[in-house]
């Protein structure tokens, strides 16, 4: 290599080095620009819905808030699949790119509050009549007098059914049974088997088809609780292996393996495609039936030996305590759960605000659902329902117990012995 060439190469490399070294400065300059007050304020909101109508509704609240504040906000919605929600959200929140606002599942509430990832909302919600929110609904999301997330959905589970399949099997509908007072788990089992025998279509599909894995608790809770059992309680009692819980889980197991009337594990038959006569849903799922090829209806969950015991799926929205603009995000949470926002959402996500819940408008808020259905399967259930169990160690409980629950999904499973094993896992983490 001659000297002239060498000098040229050295100069080129020096230039390259300068460019490489100046890159972090260029990036840090970019970060500074995003913090500048000029231009729209970026806000990222994490949810587990990807429904475009629901996202548009949420965005309309953001724009309403921006207008009220006299600023511009550019909202980006990040939809994370339900089964991966807690995992991905936690990762993002520990990094520097976490969302400013995010939905929180009721089962994860204690862990998220203890982690310090949720900002206190006491000031943010002050302007939006916090006394109107039911104290029961706020209990899970509060600690030491501070509120860390506000429930936007207090949504009971109910039975969605395919009217055409019930008619084909010559059966009354669940709503008719409910009106007669005979809509209980025994009737549920009988109609499920009759439909399978007479039409060849599955009688029941578990919630979102995930009742054997990601939604085990959602699937079993309505049965277990209406039989008088439970999973674990806030005061550390483990009840999943009580006689009542065992009876309830045995009923479900019998339906899957003896009656063969429930879509079994691994089978992808779907209620919404007409491949099952019943499933468990919430009001936010009803929009999936707007263009369905069959007539459908909805009824409350069947009653057990201890009467009706509605299960409520609760979801809240909180602000990232490490976010770029915590104060603004906290106020936005308050706005998104104020009376007018909650009223606009009520047809999809039933409210925790007493004034909206008790209004006539709430009963007419979902065009696909009659007032009577809304009253019987939603409003009444909210009053008497309970949320799923939660715990600060829920992630560990969920993962470890799922491996034991897996043993249930074969024809010869010993239900009592398996639930004893699950109880041992619950006890290990909750006591």
């Amino acid at each position, binding site marked *: 290599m001659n000297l002239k060439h*060498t000098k040229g190469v050295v100069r080129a490399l020096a230039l390259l080095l300068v460019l490489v070294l100046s890159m972090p400065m260029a990036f840090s300059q970019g970060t500074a620009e995003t913090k500048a007050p000029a231009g729209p304020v970026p806000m990222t909101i994490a949810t587990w819905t990807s429904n475009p109508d629901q996202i548009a509704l949420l965005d309309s609240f953001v724009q309403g808030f921006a207008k009220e504040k006299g600023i511009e906000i550019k909202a980006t919605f990040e939809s994370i699949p339900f089964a991966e929600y807690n995992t991905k959200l*936690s990762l993002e929140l520990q990094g520097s790119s976490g969302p400013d606002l995010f939905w929180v599942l009721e089962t994860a509430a204690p862990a998220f509050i203890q982690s310090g*990832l949720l900002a206190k909302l006491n000031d943010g919600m002050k302007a939006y009549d916090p006394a109107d929110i039911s104290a029961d609904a706020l209990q899970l999301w509060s600690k030491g007098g501070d509120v860390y997330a506000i429930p936007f959905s207090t949504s009971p589970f109910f039975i969605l059914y395919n009217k055409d399949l019930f008619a084909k099997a010559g059966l009354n509908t669940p709503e008719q049974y409910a009106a007669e007072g005979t809509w209980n788990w025994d009737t549920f089992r009988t109609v499920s088997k009759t439909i399978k025998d007479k039409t060849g279509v599955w009688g029941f599909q578990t919630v979102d088809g995930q009742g054997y894995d990601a939604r085990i608790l959602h699937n079993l809770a309505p049965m277990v609780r209406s039989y008088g059992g439970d999973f674990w309680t806030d005061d550390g009692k483990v009840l999943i292996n009580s006689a009542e819980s065992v009876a309830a889980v045995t009923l479900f197991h019998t339906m899957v393996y003896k009656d063969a009337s429930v879509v*079994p*594990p691994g089978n992808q038959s779907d209620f919404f495609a007409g491949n099952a006569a019943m499933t468990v849903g919430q009001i936010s799922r009803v929009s999936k039936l707007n263009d369905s090829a069959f007539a459908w209806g909805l009824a409350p969950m069947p009653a057990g030996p201890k009467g009706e015991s509605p299960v409520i799926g609760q979801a809240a929205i909180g602000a990232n305590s490490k976010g770029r603009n915590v104060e603004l995000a906290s106020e936005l949470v308050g706005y998104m759960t104020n009376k007018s926002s909650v009223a606009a959402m009520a047809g999809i996500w039933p409210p925790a605000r007493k004034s909206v819940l008790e209004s006539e408008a709430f009963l007419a808020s979902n065009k696909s659902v009659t007032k009577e259905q809304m009253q019987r399967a939603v409003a009444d259930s909210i009053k008497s329902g309970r949320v799923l169990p939660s715990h600060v160690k829920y992630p*560990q409980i969920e993962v470890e117990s799922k491996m034991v629950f897996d043993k249930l999904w074969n024809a010869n499973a010993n239900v009592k012995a398996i639930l004893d094993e699950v109880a041992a896992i619950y006890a290990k983490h909750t006591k």
Partner: protein
Amino acid sequence: MRMQTLKASHRREAVIGWAFIAPQMAGFIIFVLLPLASVFVYSMQEKNLLFGTSLFTGLENFRLLAKDPLFAKSLVNTLIFSAGVVPLNLVFSLLLALYLGGGRTGTRFVRGIIFLPVVTSGVAWAIVWKYLLQGGDAGPVNAFLSFFGITGPNWLFEKGWAMSSVIVTRVMKNLGMNVLIFMGAVLNMPGDVIEAARIDGAKRFTLFFKIKLPLLMPTVMMVTIVTIIGSMRVFDTIKLMTDGGPEGSTMVMVYYIYHQAFRMFDTGFASALAVVLFLIVLLLTVIQWVTRKRISYYEN
């Protein structure tokens, strides 16, 4: 004076050489070496991803790991998975390469079909097979078996079948790549040696085991190492098809690391698992490297 000029010239060349590799080295240090070192540091901490807490605990994670029944299970599952994937992959890919390297008609078409899964997305492959392997009458595989009067199992939800199903789908996915590598070696075998053996009366069996296989041994060794390491790092197939179930029967080590780190948020314990996996893979590689010359006659 001349010596000094030479030294200066060498130094300048050394600087230029370092400058050339600097970008690559910077990338390697930032994106490979530092994270790798972090894993070793984290493995000695009680570190929670959700709470963002970390506390130095020395070798406590390794002590817990030794007593963890799920770790033992995941280790055994990993060995079962590798013991299934590696021989199946090697035997079938070698046989196919020998067949396709023979210049028979239709080999281009067969080669294309075999290579197709390699270029297919791993996610799409797993989702399609999850659909095909549904239990009861719903699954196309079981529907096919029912033509012969066979009642297929619930492939991915029965403990005895889930691992086998995952192994077979994984072998089919990656077979094409090894076929391609073996074909390169088969086509480069010296024809005169094979011809001489034939003239000396070597039959097909002898020709394969005494002539062709020794000639192919360097490639076989390389493919074996790559396939074993690949099988120990399996993640996507397990995540999408079985989620480690049923009853943890497909919970291999990498998936257990994911479970601990991102489901249970115990990053410290997960890092200890990662360190153990790293050491196992390192040990296997060293063993193969040391023994290669005893097995492979033609390696330089």
